């Protein structure tokens, strides 16, 4: 199944860049059952990292406790208008996705 694009917004102010991202992912825990009683297989993001001009500024491990279509917001020092911020994730099915925006 094709992955859906993330929505990312990055804004620099006073030398600090705030990144907000809305990540489209099912984040299925593997604990739920469908209408027939069959377990819905787990499908969730395991790793997520954010880089600024290629340098990693946030690296994280995600798990089943994170909601469907998670929202992530954080700030890092540095960053200027026009720099690239890239968010990428990998999930337990081996799928991955990277989306990039310019700091506005």
């Amino acid at each position, binding site marked *: 199944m094709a992955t859906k694009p993330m929505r990312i917004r990055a*804004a620099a102010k006073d030398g600090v860049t705030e990144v*907000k991202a809305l990540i489209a992912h099912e984040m299925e825990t593997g604990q739920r059952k469908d209408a027939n009683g069959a377990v819905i297989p787990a499908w969730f993001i395991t790793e997520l990292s954010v880089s600024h001009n290629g340098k990693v500024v946030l690296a994280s491990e995600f798990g089943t406790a994170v909601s469907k279509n998670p*929202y992530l917001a954080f700030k890092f020092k540095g960053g200027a208008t026009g720099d690239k911020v890239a968010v990428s994730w990998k999930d337990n099915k081996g799928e991955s996705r990277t989306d990039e925006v310019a700091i506005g």
Partner: protein
Amino acid sequence: MSRFSKSILLVALCGASVAASAFDTYGIGRQATPAEVKAWDIDVRADFKGLPKGSGTVQKGNDLFEEKCASCHGSFGESNEVFTPLVGGTTKDDIKNGRVGGFVSGDIPQRTTFTKVATISTVWDYIYRAMPWTAPKSLKPDDVYAILAYFLNLAEIVPEDFTLSDQNIAEVQKKMPNRYGMSTDHGMWPGAPAKKGGIGNGGKPDVKNVACMKNCKTEVQIGSTLPDYARTAHGELADQYRSFGPVRGTRTLDGSAAAAAPAVSPEMELATKSGCMACHGVNNKIVGPGYNEVVARYKDQADAESRLVAKVKAGGQGVWGAVPMPPNGHLADADIKKLVHWIFSGAK
């Protein structure tokens, strides 16, 4: 002249005289001027009657939304903190079927604007009429088109390079995820059915209250109240309701069912009218800090009042968290001074 045409003429004359004397009958009021009617008549109907011309792009809407709307609604319309989310919960199938599947199966986790609303004209009208909360009617039609285009893009109804305008909004209506989700087949739509020219289905409302015209009761009799043993079951109800809007919870912990409503001071009226009370409570945080918190922080500083006057006027961000306070340049300086003084004297 035949008798027939004479009676027509008579009816026409009667009609004219009624229109002319409507304001004279009671000796009050005057005819609204066309400009007044125009300023008031801003509704946009489902058939797009009343929709101003204009257009806006998703990109412009994104920038406007970030500037004016995101502090309450979240950058992607996802925030559930101040209001329920604007966007989310709809699928490609919903857009195709015109009915949000989560409502049919009952497993929708969270209602959002785009899962519920059937007509895009309603969203346009609402944004134009009521948003931003602190400065309603400040958006130009082009701004509203742009913000709406951004919503539609977030809801995956239109692509990122889309330009929404009065020309193509009818096309977008055909893709609204819940466009067939609205029913008039219930008693809330009284009157004749549509095929007889009415707006309803002829259904009867489920209440049968008859307006009393004679021998009416002179006193209100309360039919039922919370029984004493149950009054405190959920704590203080008054504290659990929103502190703005028309509905208040009853005081349950002080024992008296009918605690008299405190008289409203003129400053409180001014604060309500100026939009302050939408975000600040007297004794509690809503979006911004409660007035008691403001006083607690600044009470020992001699120049606090004049500094806060400037701050109310220009807006600010960061002192109380990330949610910014919008600038209030539309308020008169004297009013702002009066309000700040009122806050420091306890906001009674």
